[in-house]
């Protein structure tokens, strides 16, 4: 009960007029940052961090976390309208969100995305409020083997999803792994696959690949198909929000499942990206109309967005209680905490009650404010699709170029983005799925690192992946997900044999 008293005290802090103003400002800035591909939450928070030094710490962290929420909301906008995910965890949102926009249902897709984000975040905040100390301890059980198991599960729940032939999926994934391997080998500390070419030191950044493959590739495709956006006839009034809301409760099961996946992945150090992919993959298998996923199914927007936000929010828990950031944005927030003399760690909840509960209260209020802000803007966003292609396409190109440049402030990346654009166009023409490629770029090097760390620790024994109940369970879940279709087929054969 003491927690609730603390929480109400936190609300009192967060509801001070200055703090509410800061909240709205943070959300608006965050949405703008989220819309610009490549700028991303981490960069946005880093750029705006110094602005907050003149504020009291609680107001400052409220502002920064609201920028974070805003960026999470904003990332969905470009994914749905233009097929350009601004953040890694928005990739899965494009799978159904973009087809919906093309069918003239941009308003519905945006409403579903924003509402699901809100539900996911709210679920995670309630969890943080009630079970913070319990959950924080759970993250400690994750060593390299457990982390690898989680990545393994993410890959497995995604394999076999694609409508394309399995060999094309595997080929795309292998290209992704190869690209992820370029740069510094973090285990031996040596460079690999850079061929002495300095700009490759950094490897292929996920964002540059995605902006090129999706954004530029899509523009090339649209040019080929007649220089016009489909979906220009999207309804642009606020009624669409209410109509979508009527429909959303039907998907409560997907939503709840995605909340759990998201929270679990956010608390473990895996983060929002595998959460969104995994949630999409599992929803596709479980949902009644799973076969239509990828063609503009609203449930395919609900699942990844809910999970991504539940994960994004619950990732703040390990940051506050352990000092380990769950995402790059959280890492910058962590730096901010230290500057104000707040040392994240087990003692933060004891020594800085007012701050911690003020932050948690601002998570509730920030998300509500955020939802209102973005929902009222749905018609404006949807109206963007009515702008003629000849005006919007150059604007998107410029935005993409700025996004690619701002990742590492390097013009080489802009050229790389264009190359990826051509590759993306060719792969699409040959019906190679892009999603497995992207998944492999995002998670490939992390999975490799965790795998090699595990084997170093076990002195080369593969037994480490079955060495305790936690890691064994996750690995077995992964194997089940991998062979799910075979299991299903076997089961139905058994049943038909039994009835026959």
């Amino acid at each position, binding site marked *: 009960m003491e927690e609730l008293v603390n929480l109400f005290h936190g609300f009192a802090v967060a509801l001070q007029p200055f703090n509410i103003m800061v909240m709205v400002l943070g959300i608006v800035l965050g949405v703008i940052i989220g819309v610009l591909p490549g700028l991303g939450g981490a960069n946005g928070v*880093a750029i705006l961090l110094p602005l907050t030094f003149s504020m009291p710490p609680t107001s400052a962290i409220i502002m920064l976390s609201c920028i974070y929420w805003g960026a999470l909301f904003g990332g969905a906008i470009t994914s749905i309208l233009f097929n350009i995910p601004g953040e890694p965890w928005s990739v899965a949102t494009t799978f159904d969100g973009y087809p919906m926009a093309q069918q003239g249902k941009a308003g519905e897709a945006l409403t579903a995305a924003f509402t699901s984000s809100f539900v996911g975040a709210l679920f995670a905040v309630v969890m943080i409020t009630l079970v913070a100390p319990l959950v924080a301890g759970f993250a400690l059980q994750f060593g390299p083997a457990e982390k690898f198991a989680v990545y393994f599960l993410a890959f497995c729940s995604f394999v076999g999803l694609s409508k394309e032939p399995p060999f094309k999926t595997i080929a795309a994934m292998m290209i992704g792994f190869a690209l992820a391997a370029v740069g510094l080998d973090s*285990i031996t*500390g*040596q460079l690999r696959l850079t061929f002495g070419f300095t700009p490759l030191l950094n490897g292929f950044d996920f964002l540059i690949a995605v902006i090129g493959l999706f954004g530029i590739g899509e523009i090339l495709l649209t040019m080929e198909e007649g220089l016009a956006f489909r979906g220009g006839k999207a309804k642009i009034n606020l009624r669409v929000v209410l109509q979508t809301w009527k429909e959303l409760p039907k998907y409560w099961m997907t939503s709840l499942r995605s909340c759990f996946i998201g929270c679990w992945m956010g608390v473990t150090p895996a983060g929002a990206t595998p959460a969104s992919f995994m949630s999409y993959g599992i929803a596709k298998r479980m949902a009644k109309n799973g076969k239509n996923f990828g063609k503009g199914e609203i449930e395919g927007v609900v699942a990844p967005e809910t999970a991504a936000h539940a994960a994004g929010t619950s990732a703040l828990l390990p940051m506050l209680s352990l*000092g380990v950031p769950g995402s*790059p944005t959280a*890492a*910058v927030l962590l730096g901010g905490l*230290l500057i104000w003399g707040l040392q994240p760690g087990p003692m933060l909840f004891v020594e800085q009650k007012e701050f911690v509960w003020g932050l948690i209260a601002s998570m509730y209020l920030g998300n509500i404010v955020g939802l209102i802000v973005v929902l009222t803007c749905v018609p404006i966003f949807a109206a963007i699709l009515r702008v003629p292609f000849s005006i919007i396409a150059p604007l998107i190109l410029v935005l993409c170029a700025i996004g690619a440049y701002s990742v590492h402030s390097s013009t080489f990346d802009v050229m790389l983005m264009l190359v990826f654009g051509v590759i993306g166009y060719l792969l699409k023409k040959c019906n190679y799925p892009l999603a497995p490629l992207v998944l492999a770029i995002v998670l490939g090097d992390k999975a490799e690192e965790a795998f090699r*760390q595990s084997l170093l620790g076990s002195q080369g024994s593969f037994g480490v992946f079955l060495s305790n109940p936690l890691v064994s369970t996750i690995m077995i879940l992964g194997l089940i997900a991998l062979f799910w279709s075979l299991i299903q087929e076997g089961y139905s054969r058994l049943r038909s044999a039994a009835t026959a």
Partner: protein
Amino acid sequence: MRRSTHLALGAIAALCTGGVAAPATAAWEPVRPVEFIVPAGTGGGADQMARTIQGIVTKHTLMKQPLVVINKSGGAGGEGFLDVKGSGGNPHKIIITLSNLFTTPLATGIPFSWKDLTPVAMLALDEFVLWVNADKPYKTAKEYIDAVKAAPAGSIKMGGTGSKQEDQIITVAVEKAVGTKFTYIPYKGGGEVAVQLVGNHVDSTVNNPIEAVAQWRGGKLRPLCVFDAKPMAYDEPIADGKAWKDIPTCKSAGLDMEYLMLRGIFMAPRATKDQVEYYVELFKKIRATPEWQDFMKSGAFNTTFLTGAEYAKWVEAEDKRHQALMKEAGFLAPSN
């Protein structure tokens, strides 16, 4: 013809500035935003320091132009170093360094040496402490070393930041002193390493104070000894009535290894004396602020401040030492 006009213009410009700016008071000042390169990822020790400096500069308006922090962490920081190396004559770019100033060129063979840059100032030195999980029975470094010696070689896991960088160099030195082998497991960041130790996924670490202090205060980790010639200076109690000052030196426990990590500032090649002077003065002002002093205290930093020839001499000696350490450990890239 073209070249001669350029020369002529240059000469005129030089005359003008020489004529006008001759009095010592009209020193150089940035006329554009200054890029502050961090050759490491967000959230790490160097990044935290750079962002603290950025915050102090903004809060106390110590510069007329903004200071912009940019992370260039690719290739173990090689990306950042090569960027500054390639910006010769650009006074609007400074870089904060850590030990990868020495280790990255040696381990990866990228074409870079600290001599390519212009030294500005040493801001502080970061300490290294030997940590174990607080649940373990070892109370002193000696008890721990005895346990390591008794265990089969390679069965004790040492966690650290990065591969063939400072943490692994110290690990190899400890191995030499003890006469056994650890299994060294590299992680991406110091905070992650500390948490892996709390979760008992590794047996010990050589985290910097700031990376592990929160877990020490929370009673999860125990410091055994510090890799410095003398104990740290801070006597404010942190946990169990113990202060940083109470941590004995590793030398006194029979581990003859001293290691301090540079937190220093460099400029691009071909910086003029005026320009270096500007930044030295700037950092002197930053060091005088209460925020900086708090930051030093929270991370138990060694606050040695060096500039000019003294600083260059220190860096040169440290470079030689790293070459020797890296060679001994077998960490040199094949091309070196």
